[in-house]
């Protein structure tokens, strides 16, 4: 399983319910019950989504006296600049890999010659 932070972040965000939860938390901390309310799913199902977000470091669960709540983490994706960062990282890899591949092609490993 890919456990590097970037993959975890992508995986956590690749779900509309989880994105909705993040959008809600961006407006302030709240309880799991309140997070679950707008979604037509069980509390247990919502808790699973929360767990995924927590593992990715996007949110934190805290306890204040008897009150338990979730809040957005100033973590891997504070805002959509994270998307630009991920994009930039992808292309940095891509161009490095293309450079190496072009060298392979020119050594005669090119299978797509016209």
């Amino acid at each position, binding site marked *: *399983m*890919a456990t*590097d*932070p*970037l*993959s975890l972040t*992508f*995986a956590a*965000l*690749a*779900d*509309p319910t989880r*994105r909705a939860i*993040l*959008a809600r938390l*961006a*407006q*302030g901390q709240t309880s799991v019950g309140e997070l679950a309310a707008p979604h037509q799913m069980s509390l247990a199902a919502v808790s699973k989504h929360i767990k995924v977000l927590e593992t990715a470091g996007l949110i934190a669960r805290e306890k204040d006296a008897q009150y338990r709540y979730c809040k*957005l983490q*100033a973590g*891997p*994706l*504070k*805002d*959509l*600049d*994270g*998307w*630009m*960062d*991920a*994009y*930039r*990282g*992808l*292309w*940095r*890899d*891509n*161009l*490095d*890999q*293309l*450079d*190496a*591949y*072009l*060298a392979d*092609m*020119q050594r005669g490993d*090119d*299978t*797509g010659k*016209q």
Partner: protein
Amino acid sequence: MNKMLVETPEGEPIIRMSRTFDAPRALVWRAWTRPEHVARWWGSRAMGATRVVKLDLRPGGEWRFEQTTPDGTVFAFIGKYIEVDEPERLVNTFALEGMFEDKTVIETHRFEEIDGRTHYSGVTRFDSIEDRDGMVASGMEAGAQESMNQLEELLGELVSA
């Protein structure tokens, strides 16, 4: 090792990238636009092998590259070609399926041949910074620089992993 130049002008939702490849332009274009070649270099290695599902190289044509992580999560990078001007210019949209799909990302790739080498320059335009910040970030501290630094670290880990 890093011969790539990346610029992110402050206050502008664009990323500029440039790099010089030690290969003629026709070859770079071929590597960039043919499925069998794209699968060999495109994608984050940390996320697994890249499968070129679709690459319809004409204006309006769609592309779809998928990566499957070892735990079975599929990431589909998708888009449409807007301009195809072989061998010097390619414009396409870019998105990650299911994530920020309401955000428009347009990539403009330019290839220039100089003394048998190819100078690549790419400009990626994101939605306005206001749009970007509006979705998740409302009410949060910006901290763009901090998240950039975090990603630098992440990338360092990915590269050395």
